[in-house]
């Protein structure tokens, strides 16, 4: 009895340990040097993202504020991660999300909507709820990179 309990406890400890290690690894993973594409139609928010990403150490290689522009930049630019607003001037960006998924590029979805309004295909993508703090952005970026 006692040994079963001890086994269980040590098992739990192990799981906790590995989870913690995992988190630590993620936290330590360097976001610096990542090339980021910002897809956001509010220019003021885009600027804020640009500055915040720069502070984290990322390089913003492009900003797209219009749907067609975003489609074009996703295709033509080389980047490691994208921050994708779900709505560009009233048009949802799910097709852009799909093409990012297809290309295997990590991305974060920025939205003022609740996560429940997103389609099934985006349920596993990290959500950056607007408005956000720098650490929310960092956490979302890390989650996207796992």
């Amino acid at each position, binding site marked *: 009895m006692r040994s079963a309990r001890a086994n269980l406890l040590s098992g739990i400890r192990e799981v906790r340990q590995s989870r913690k290690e995992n988190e630590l690894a993620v936290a330590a993973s360097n976001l610096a040097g990542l090339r980021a594409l910002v897809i956001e139609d509010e220019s*003021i*928010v885009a*600027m*804020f993202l640009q*500055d915040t990403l720069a502070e984290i150490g990322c390089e913003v290689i492009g900003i797209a504020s219009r749907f067609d522009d975003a489609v074009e930049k996703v295709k033509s630019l080389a980047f490691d991660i994208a921050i994708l607003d779900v709505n560009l001037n009233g048009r949802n960006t799910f097709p852009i999300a799909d093409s990012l998924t297809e290309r295997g590029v990590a991305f974060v979805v920025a*939205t*003022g909507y609740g996560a429940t309004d997103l389609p099934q295909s985006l349920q596993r993508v990290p959500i950056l*709820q*607007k*408005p956000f703090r720098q650490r929310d952005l960092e956490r979302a970026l890390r989650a996207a990179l796992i």
Partner: protein
Amino acid sequence: MTKRAGDGLFGSDLWEAALEKYGSATHLTVRLFDADERAVFGPVHSTPLFQLFDETGYEPGIFAECAHRCIAQIEKRPAIIVSQFHGLAVVGASLALEGRVVGAAVGGYAFADFSQVSEIQRLARQANIAFERLWEIARKQPPVPQRRLRVHGELLQVLGDALLREHYRMRQYERAAAIVHSSDDAIVSTDLEGVIRSWNSGAERLLGYTAREAVGEPVTLFIPADRIDDEQGIVERIRRDEKIEHYETVRRCKDGRLLDVSLTVSPLTDAQGRIVGASRIARDITERKRQEHHRELLMNELNHRVKNTLATVQSLAMQTLRHAATLAEGRDSFEARLMTLSKAHDVLTREHWEGADLNKVAADAVAAYCGDVQESRFRVAGPIVRLQPKAVLALSMALHELATNAMKYGALSNTTGNVEINWRLIPGDPQRFQLRWAESGGPPVETPDRRGFGSRLVEQGLAQDLAGEARLTFARGGLVCTIDTPLDEIRQSEPAERHS
């Protein structure tokens, strides 16, 4: 026979047929009176004698008197009047419906029964003479025994009540049928096997099948395949005499379209109270569903806008503070930017977020800087351009930054400088929009070594929001800002396009 058009209660063929039968069995004539004691039906004659009354225009008056007694309920038992003068006995019964006296039936009885007299045809032909002679004979007969009259009165009562009830039931039925017929709801009855037995015009309109097509078909005719299981449950509940109210479901129309309905299903019983089927009332709730959906969309949109506005305000605050030399300066700049954003929202709200005139946007942007002295220091000119909301917000913010800069370092920092704001439309494909902010008369301009958030808001933000170019030129004589963008990117779209 002088049958008058009485009110609905006494006018039916049912009465006539029943009274003829009753009369022929008892050699009477019968008249019906309404609650106002007006003769409304009859007389229905069975003996030729009473026919002679009519033909000679002889009106004994005791029918009306008897009806009065019945209607006024002077006597509890059937009212009987025996007139030796007329050689006539009458018996009346009051007719009541739902506890209310609605009229009276009065039967007349001659002392002499001439119905069997062989020469009656001849007598009738000579009516005018024969009538008096006939009458004399009648008066000499012994009166009809009271007992017999009472029995007739009671018979009359039973007959009248039964007929009225029947008549009333029919009217109720007709009224109900009229309601069913004219209803906008689909009202369908089915038997316990689920076979359609009736189909109103509401059902024809909503579901598309005519009554001829639907009656006799199984109820699954208009139930979508994935809802057939529900139907089994409904039938079981109906068998248990349960009513199913306001159950929201979907029904299939003839053309395959699915219709949102609110369904009420009630058991139908026969005269013995046995459950024989179900009535199904389906109400079209497409419109309600559409409104619910619309409301949900609006809530989502509102939430989205609020969250995005918060993100914008957050970005403004963070970047203002980041660039501010002192906390006080940062606070003032942030406040001014927030107020500019808020005023631009006001303009758009007044226009239902459809757009605003550039003239108005420009006037609002410089209004804060047009004090008494400086009123004439702005020259604003350009053609009418309706801007879309995004352009309104972007230009309001940019003009605010330019004006603030002019106040601090440029043409508005001394007493002599001026600002010209001009815009024009350049023909071509695409048609272009150009705006120029030009300062003059201010202190000599130095190109700043470091660009602040204001410059960035104009050069990067405006360019991005207008999908064009925005350039700041620090010319020696005064700052110049030029904006160049395709007109379609900033112009409010036509209503037809907007709703497409």
